[in-house]
Structures are given as C-alpha cells and as structure tokens.
C-alpha cells in the first residue's frame, strides 16, 4: 500500500465516523469564527493559503525561511568578526576553519535550504460550497549541501579513512514568478450536523523561471579523492547549469533587472483535501502541491575538473595551480578558481520541488487551538528535509489570535515560532517569525512571514 492509498483509506474511515469524543465548548472562540480562519498559516509554501479566507478581497504577503544544520547566528557573527580586518588583522586562520568544520554534524554533512515567496491574492467564496482565488506570486527555492564524505576529509582528517568523494554535494537555486488560480469545493456535513465538512482544493499555476542555477558533481558518485600517506589522487569534477540572463554574457553582464525576463515556462498543479468537524473541533488535511515540471531555456552547462595522482604534495599544489586555479605565483591563497568551461547550452526540464504535507488541528477549547503538520522531505533538486510543526493558536479575542509553536527540522533541530494576527471581516494582518534550530542567537535558521489584506 502506497502512501496515497493509505491516506485515502484512513480518510474514508474517519469521514464516515462521528467524532463524539469531544465537542467544542459553548461560546468558544473557535465556534465564532469561520472555519476558513481555523486553517492555521504555515511558514512554507502553501498555494491554498488564502483561498480559504471566507471573504472576498485581496491579500499581499511575503515570507521566507532558511536554515542550516551547522552554524548558528553567533557563529556567523564570530566569523564576521574574525574576518573583519578592523577587529582581527590576521583574518581567519586555518584553525578557525577547522573549528567551523567541526560544527558540521558527523555523518550528515553540511546542509542548508531556504524558501521565499511574495505575492498578491484576489478571491473569495461563491456561496458556502465554492471559493475561487487568483494569485500572482514570486517564489524562490534554494539549497546547498556538502556531502559528509567530503567534509570528513577536512573535518576529521585522513587518519582513519583515506577515501573521500564529493558525493551528493550540490547547490541549486530557482526563482520563479507565477500566476494561478485555485478553487475550493466544500460539502455539507456528511451524515449529520456533526459530520465532517469536506473541502477539495485544486489549482494550477503558470510558472515562469527567472533564475536557475545548479551545481553538482559531474562524475558519477561524486568522483574520488584519496589522501593517504602513500600519495594523493583525485578525480573530481563539477558541473554547473545556469540560466540567469537572456544574454550570452552570463554573469559578467548580469543586472538585477535581468531577472524580469522570462527564462522558460511550466505548469504546476496543487491538490488538497481537508476534513473538518466543526463541532468536534478537529480537522485533518492532506496537501500535495507543486506538481509539475519547468522548462528552463538556454541553460549554460559548464564543467570544471581536477585530476591528480602523485606522491608529492608539491605536485598537488602544482596541479592545483595548473588546472583549476587561476593562480598568483607563489600565493595560492589569493588564487581564484578558473572559469568553468561552457560545454553546452540547452533547454533544461526540471522538476519543481514537490510539497506533501499532512496537517491536523484541534480546537476543543475555549481559546486554544493546536495544530500539527508534517512536511515530507524532498530529495534531489531543491532538497528539503522532513519538518514537523507543532503550533498553538490562542484566541483570547476572536479576531486577534496569538500563535506559538515548535518547529522541528531534520537539518536544524528544534526551533520556536510565534506570531500575532488580526483576522477580521474586512481586514487581515498576520506577522509570524521563527527561530529555527535554537533560540535567537543560537538559532541556525530563521523564518518570517507578513501578510495583510482587505475584504469587501
């Protein structure tokens, strides 16, 4: 039984049952607001975010999140401090870098990812059973990872192991704009007045890429790097795929306005099913979004490689000078990597980072609503790890919810979230922020979201 089948089976059982074990108290805040506002906002991409709003109007929003699994903000400040010549004339030393490498979790390698979106929504309900929302969005996805098989070379040395590889190290980024429409179809309660309201959501987006870049090993399995007492050998290669401007000049001619130009096209589809038991104060939701492929035009593909096999460290330095580095004689530190050699320019079809999320909420309390969701990991391009969000919404006032929560990500660990909102009949304002992977200074990630809207 695959995941989708299991979800449908569970849903059919749940939807047909009467959840009489709990009931929301009389006069609770949850009972006084539209069930559309009971769908708690999420930091990450959610195409159905606004179409659930039970009023006609528009909403603008912006949000971003990013995290890594190694460095917290204090580390970054320390690095900035040591790298500032005013503070530290000696600059970053080899030992400092060794300490930083020591912060990368053994066995996991370095991982970081980020998402950001900003856009405009216009829409609202047509009666009780149908809602329509139109959106115009700008979205960005980015991720980077350095395989532990590569990090280990510098972090652990070659005392216990001698063979290394670039492995799955990669970096990728995608910036898109899109227009789309989403509809919701709601059912009446199934079975009885306490039965479940079902909501089916479906939507589509026309996606245009504006920036795409990807780098990874060009050699299967990441190539090989062997450093032992007997010698050094390396056979590694990197490939880079970039579509940044419509001009052949590449990075040299890049200007930010170039991002406005279209670099391709694609279609994305989003699906959602949500069951709500209003009187029981419970909801379950499954969402699969961002299903689709994107064709990026004129992607420059370039390679860079380094091969050496020697028993002499000096020859390694010489090889570095001769091959991948554009060297200043006698000064490797001031050397730069040579330009990648463009091998091809082609249209590239990429898969959008799929979002599979399961959520559940319960509000069988006068003021408190609890939410839990899990977003399944995405592998491959725009990789993101499994995350679990546990949130609480406190409605001391019907239209002024306060939210606190915990957010767990496989990369960064436990984090903290909070937010305030005004969710009224004619006005919406939400602000939320998260300290990911730790608290404030010790956080290794951050998330924030702001949105406001007006309704007719």
């Amino acid at each position: 039984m695959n995941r989708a089948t299991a979800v449908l089976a569970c849903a059919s059982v749940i939807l047909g049952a009467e959840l009489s074990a709990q009931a929301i108290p009389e006069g609770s805040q949850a009972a006084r607001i539209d069930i559309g506002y009971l769908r708690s906002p999420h930091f990450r991409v959610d195409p159905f975010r606004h179409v659930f709003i039970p009023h006609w109007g528009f909403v603008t929003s912006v949000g971003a999140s990013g995290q890594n699994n190694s460095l917290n903000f204090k580390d970054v400040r320390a690095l900035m401090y040591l790298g500032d010549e005013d503070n530290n004339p000696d600059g970053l030393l080899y030992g400092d870098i060794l300490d930083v490498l020591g912060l990368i979790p053994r066995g996991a390698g370095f991982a970081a990812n980020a998402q950001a979106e900003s856009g405009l929504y216009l829409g609202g309900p047509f009666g009780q059973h149908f809602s329509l929302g139109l959106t115009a969005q700008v979205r960005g996805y980015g991720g980077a990872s350095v395989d532990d098989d590569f990090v280990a070379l510098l972090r652990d040395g070659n005392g216990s192991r001698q063979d290394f590889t670039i492995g799955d190290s990669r970096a990728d980024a995608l910036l898109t704009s899109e227009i789309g429409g989403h509809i919701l179809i709601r059912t009446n309660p199934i079975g009885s007045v306490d039965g479940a309201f079902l909501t089916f959501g479906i939507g589509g987006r026309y996606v245009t890429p504006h920036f795409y870049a990807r780098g990874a090993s060009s050699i299967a399995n990441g190539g090989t790097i062997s450093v032992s007492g007997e010698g050094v050998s390396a056979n590694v290669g990197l490939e880079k795929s970039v579509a940044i401007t419509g001009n052949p000049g590449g990075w040299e001619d890049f200007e930010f306005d170039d991002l406005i130009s279209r670099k391709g096209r694609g279609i994305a589809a989003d699906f959602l099913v949500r069951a709500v038991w209003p009187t029981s104060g419970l909801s379950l939701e499954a969402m699969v979004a961002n299903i689709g492929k994107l064709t990026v035009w004129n992607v420059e593909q370039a390679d860079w490689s380094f091969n050496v096999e020697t028993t002499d460290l000096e020859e390694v330095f010489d090889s570095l000078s001769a091959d991948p580095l554009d060297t200043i004689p006698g000064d490797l530190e001031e050397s730069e990597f040579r330009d990648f050699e463009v091998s091809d320019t082609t249209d590239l079809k990429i898969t959008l980072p799929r979002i599979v999320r399961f959520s559940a909420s319960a509000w069988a309390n006068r003021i408190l609503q609890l939410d839990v969701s899990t977003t399944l990991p995405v592998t491959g391009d725009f990789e993101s790890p499994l995350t679990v969000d546990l949130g609480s919404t406190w409605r001391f006032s019907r239209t002024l919810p306060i939210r606190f929560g915990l957010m767990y990500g496989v990369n960064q660990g436990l984090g903290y979230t909070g937010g305030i909102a005004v969710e009224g009949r004619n006005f919406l304002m939400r602000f939320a922020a998260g300290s990911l992977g730790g608290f404030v200074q010790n956080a290794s990630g951050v998330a924030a979201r702001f949105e406001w809207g007006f309704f007719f």
Partner: protein
Amino acid sequence: MTLGNCRSFAGLIGLLALATACEPASILEARDQLARGGARTVVYVLPIIDTVFKIETLLEDSDIDTIAGGLLAVEIEEQTVPVDFGEALEFQNINLDPPLVVSFPPAALSVPPGTPVTFSETYIGGGLANDTILDDVDTVEVFSGVLSVTTRNRLTIPINYTATLGGFTQSGGASLVGSGTIAAAAGDGSYSSNTLNFDLANVTIVPESVSVSVVGTGTVGGTPIPAGLGDSAIVQTGGIATLVVQAVAGTLDPTTTPELTVSIEEVEEVESDDFDLGDLEDAVDSSTINNAMISLRVDNGASVQAVLSAFNLGVVNLDAAGNVPRDGLGNPDFEEDVGGTPILVPVVDPGETTLTLAASGTSSVDLDAAPLVDRLVHLLLDDERAAIVAVGDVVIGDGSQARVTRTDAVSVQMGVTVGLDITIPPTGVSFTRNTTQTGLEMDPEDADQLVERLDSAAVVADAENNTPFGVELDIAFVDGYLADDVDIFGYPGRVVLDPITLDAPTVDAQGLVTSPSTTMVSIVLSGEQARQLTGDTLSATVRARLIPGTGGSGRGAIRASDEIVLDVQARIVLRSGGGGQ
C-alpha cells in the same frame, strides 16, 4: 508586493536575525564561539616522500655507465696518448769502412822539384755498404746528422783534395762534395789531417749506392820526399755519430736492424675535473676501488707493423711543476702498492706478452687496472697532480718492405672506467646532500596556531635498503631557502631529526646484494620542529653514512639497480573544538 520587496524582506529578516546575535567582544571570544563543538582531534597523514632513491642519483652530474654484472661505473674523460716512435728512430756510429787509402810508388815521388803529384781514387760499393747497421735499409732520409770525413797526409808536401760522396743525394739531386787542403806532414811518418763535415739534413742516403771519390794534387818542393812515405800516403776515414731519420725504407726487420726497436715514454696528466664522482666522492676517497678497467684503442698511424713490447702503464705523482719524478736511473718513479712494487699495467693482447698493431691498423684491448685507477683516483681526490705514464718499446717492422717516417706514431686512446665496487673502512664513509622543497606555504599566523593546536606530530619512515651498505641518515631542515653549500646542521634554528639507521643487507663475496633490508622508523616532532615545515620553502640536508655490509669484508658493489625505497609520511594530530560554549 514586488520582487524587490521580496528580496528586501528576506534581507531584512537576515539582518534582524544577525542583529540578535551579539558581536563578540574579542578575538578570543569569537574563537571560543567557533570552537563550541566538542573537543576532538583531526588526524592528517600526508606523504612527504614516497620515492625510490637510486644510488646513481648521487652521480647525477657524472658520466656514468653500467658495466659487467650491472655494476655502476664512473668514466674518466678519455685520454689520448700519442706514442711518437717515428721521432725516436735513429742510427748511431755509422762508419765509412774500410778507410780509403792512397799509396804512391817510390818513382812517383822521386821527381824534380816543382813536379805535381796527383791522385784520384773511387771506392764504389765500399763505404757505408760495408757497415752492417744499414744492411737492410734501402734508403734513409736524414732529419739530422753530420758525416765527418777526415783525410790524412804523411807526405812532406801539402795536398789539395776534393771528396765527392756518391749515394748521398741532396734535395736538389746533387751529390755531396767537399774540398780541403791537408798540410804537409813532418816527414817522420806521421800524418797531418784535414776534416770535412757534411751536414746530412734533408740528404737521402742510399747505402748500396754509396761511393767515395777523392781527387787530390800536390807539388814536390825543393826537399825530396822520402821514399818510404809513399805507402798509405793518403788515408781517408769517416763516419756518422748520430743519424736521426726523417724516413727510412727498405726491408725493415727489427731482428737485423735493432734500431727499429725504439724505447718510448709518454706522459699524460689526468686532471681532477676529468671525472666527477658526485656525492660519492667522499665515499670513494675513503674506500678502495676494487674494479676498474682501462679500455685502450690503439691506432697505428704507420704503414708498417708495430709491436708494443714490454709496454706498461703506470701512475706517477707529478710535482707541483708537473714534472715526472724519477728514480736514480732516470726512470719514472711509479706509484707503488703496499708491498713496494710499482703499480704497472702491461699493455698486451689477451694471452700474449706483447700488443701487435698491424700496419695502419687498430687494436682495442681492455685492461684490468683496479690498483692503478684506485691510486690515480685517490691522488686526484687528494688534490695531487697525477699522470699516467706509458713506457716500453715499439718494435717497428716485420721484415717486409716498408717505409717509416718521422711523423709516424701510434695513438693510444685510453678510457678509464671506475667501477663502483668499493671497500669502505669499518668506520664508514659520509657524504652530504642539500635539497630544497616546497613547504606547507602557511602564513606565520596560521603556523603559530597550528603549533598551538598540535596534539602530536611524527614522521614515519618506511625504508627498504637495496644497497650493499648499511646507511645511517642524519636529517636536518630549516625554514627558508639556503644555498647548497650551507651547513644546515650548524645553521641557527635548524631542526635535527633522530638518525634513521638502515641495516646493511646481506651481500655475496662480490659485494652484490642478495636480499634487501627493511626498517620502519617513527620520529616524533615537537611543535617547533613541525613549525619549520609550514614555510614557503624548506631547506634540508641529508648526511648519509655508508657502513660496511656483513659480507664481502666491507666490499660493496654498487649496481645501477641499487636503491633505497623510502616512504616518509607525516602524521599530524591537531586539536579542534572543545572551547567556548
């Protein structure tokens, strides 16, 4: 909301997040922050040297060769010794024999005063033809020599005479002619005489054609000539003391013409820069050379057979002026072996006692000359002047018709090959080699931090000794570039590692390695020692001491295949993390 807004928002979030993290108050605090990870060690094992160190690389600037048995050899620059036997060819004490005698009958002398007395005599086939020295010589072209002809008169009247020498042809074709006057004798039977000296330079002598014609006249005076004086009144004798030959032709047979056997002594100085033992110079200087070969190529420039007889090569220690030392008999004072016997190498054909050179021919021969070359090399390594001296006889001709000229010579090209089969003393021999190599190219600040974080450092050397000797290696290095002639062991700040000892492999009686020896040495480095590795350039010196092997009585034959396989690794353990929060 525009794209720019989105970017600004994301940046704002980042800045706010960073702002929440207080800036470190000090470098120390910043470093403590980065070191918040758990204490751990990082182990780097790096190759320093993984090489096959061939002994022959010690001779990289030398002219090396491989000889029989794979033995490595150094060649001394080829020497050429001309043996100019033509110049040595001469004849001595050639006489006009028998003497020419003129007698007068008594009636011829009993004549009135004023009566002339004349005589004319020619001796054809006499003279030189009767001297056995030139019996087998057809012609002799004279380089130098004087024929002295003395004519005596015992008449009491003066005699004017003219002597014409047939068979002595001047360059223009004319015969030698000379005139003289012999004073009147006393009349008591004694002779007065007159001598004519004929310069024979450029004169061609044909011995069989030699004739002497004498024409003379005198006038009887007032006093009668005693009758008894007419017998043997005029006597003419002559001879050549030394005839230096420009060319000689005929049936040249040294058995009948002993002058065709000439004694030769040629000296060829060998300069110290005629060979280069590279970094093995000191080792060889302290050792005995057991294998050396002199390869001779002898070219006979004459169109006559020549035989080198009793011909030897020896070594002499020249004085400061380059003169050959000589014994009381004037012979070269050759270098001697420990028994006091001159070290001489006979130049002979294999199995023979002489070396025969065909007319205009070439002969090559290899001579085992280890003692001679050993002495020669040691003299030169000790900054003495030395020469190879060739002494002996050249026997010209084999009885066949031939012609030898003054310029005829035998050219001896002498190639000396010093096989590196050496016997070193029990105390061993040392040589030193300086090298420079790239360091870790770290900034001084990085190097300081590396030393601070150093948990341990060691150099681990695996070595396999395929040389016939034991080897003790002393290694010193220092940061920076130093010239080759700098003694790094005495240089300030140098790092001297513990010695590495490689046992001598087992060798056979010929000094050849039968099985290599191996060793592994681990040398612990202090932090300051490790710091010397971090600069841009590293100057290192290796002082190697060769120790006699266990077999062969200290004898070791260095083959081209002899090598030390050296695998040197650095194992550096650094501390990381474990600080701050």
